[in-house]
């Protein structure tokens, strides 16, 4: 079996948001819709303070509450773990948005553009009416992964088959791969480092793993 996941090395991430912008480009999302973004968290009290940059987005949960609540089956989970949305079925009820404990989902009802009133050439070119009024979120760049698989490429290794945020990451904080394959890049990292997952206690089985210390 295959289970796609992202490993985010918190020791590496610098909060530059290059991944955020790369995703905005790759998925042509409207202003403010960030399938990937990186939080700036502060821990502790002066002078004993730490600052941590935390990439977040859809966790492509093992037991996705968003899928469970979806009344239309627009949200599905594929055999390889990807949680997908069919924009042609989704009615935009917003139920999945409140069901997701990771605030990963967006719904935009009206066309919005970077420079307010008017769409730029690239916004016009890539405007996708199907996304209005329906739920959207990180796709794990499913189109790239599927393209790669169809062309004998390895997602997470070959850039054409790898999510845009992972490709763009300056610090190599983000790694994409198959956690079911013990020899994969992500499995290796998960063996070499201690990791946690966000809100794991909620039973969602999230698939972004955060590395925080190397295994000694």
């Amino acid at each position, binding site marked *: 079996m295959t289970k796609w996941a992202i490993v985010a090395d918190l020791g590496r991430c610098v909060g530059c948001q290059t991944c955020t912008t790369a995703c905005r480009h790759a998925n042509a999302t409207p202003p403010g819709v960030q399938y990937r973004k990186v939080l700036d968290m502060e821990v502790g009290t002066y002078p004993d303070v730490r600052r941590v940059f935390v990439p977040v987005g859809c966790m492509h949960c093992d037991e996705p509450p968003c899928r469970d609540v979806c009344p239309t089956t627009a949200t599905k989970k594929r055999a390889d773990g990807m949680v997908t949305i069919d924009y042609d079925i989704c*009615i935009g009820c*917003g*139920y999945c948005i*409140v069901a997701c404990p990771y605030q990963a989902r967006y719904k935009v009802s009206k066309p919005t553009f970077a420079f307010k009133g008017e769409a730029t050439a690239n916004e016009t070119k890539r405007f996708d009416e199907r996304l209005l009024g329906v739920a959207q979120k990180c796709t794990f760049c499913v189109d790239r992964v599927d393209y790669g698989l169809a062309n004998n490429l390895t997602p997470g290794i070959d850039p054409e088959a790898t999510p845009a945020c992972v490709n763009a990451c300056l610090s190599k904080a983000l790694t994409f791969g198959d956690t079911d394959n013990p020899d994969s890049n992500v499995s290796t990292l998960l063996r070499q480092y201690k990791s*946690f997952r966000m*809100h794991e206690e909620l039973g969602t089985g999230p698939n972004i793993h955060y590395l*925080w210390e190397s295994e000694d």
Partner: protein
Amino acid sequence: MTNEPEVGMRHLGLAPWLQTAWDLRAAGNFVGGGSGTGLLIITSLGAFGGLYSRGAILVGLVLVGLGLFSVFLEIGRPLRAMNVLLGGKRSWMTREAFVAAVLFPLGTAALVYPDLAKLIWVPALAYLYCQARILEASKGIPTWRSPLILPLILTTGLAEGAGILLVLAPMAFDSATPPDWAASALIAALAARIFVWMTYRRRMVAGEAPVEAAAVLVAFSAPFTLGGNIIPVVMVIGAGLEPSIAVAALAAAGLAAMAGGWMLKVTIVTKAAQNQGFAIKHSPARGAGEPGPGIKPGWTDSSNT
């Protein structure tokens, strides 16, 4: 729009913030559906005691219908609304729609065939249960996903239903006074509701909800307890002690109980509806440095260790 906090001061979007996906329109579904089915359940059960009120059934159905219409206004793609029926395998929203498909024909039929009134409670209760489960399945909103949301939605639905029955009594029943058990039903439902509420509130404040959501619940608690529960009970008792004001007092009691329930749902759905926020279990080691504690901003136990 998006479910982001306002642009500007965005770095604050770490702690749970108020969800904006469901607003008053969605709350309307829980208000209408809860009150409507509550009324239908009470009325239907009353049928076993000989009660038959077309008015009550009609009002119940209309309330449920208005609720559905209200939520219809919220969806992004109303033309595809019928797709709501596709998710029966998992979604309580689909199941609610299925039940509605039974409830409305049955309720309508009961307007013509009084005997059918005795059956209405089944789909009505199922509908109410679906609503409770809809909230409970919203894992992203800590105040909704609490298991206590189930009894809370059920008891408040019944309390609202009983309350509305008392309000309708002067118009809907020949006697102008509701059956004796109606007031008792209201008291019972209120007692159950307040008990569940207190437990729910306590658990939310004790750390099951984000600080901000708990604060909303705390602020809501006194007016709700008093206005929505204690005052109606006092009025019911007053009505028993002073028959001259009974009709008015019972109607007022019913109204207060109903209004309390409505406010409860509006509060939970649109005000105490902070999402989960973000948290980390550990701060990372940076290079050869030491790792540190995690953090869960916006929660009582914000250290998340």
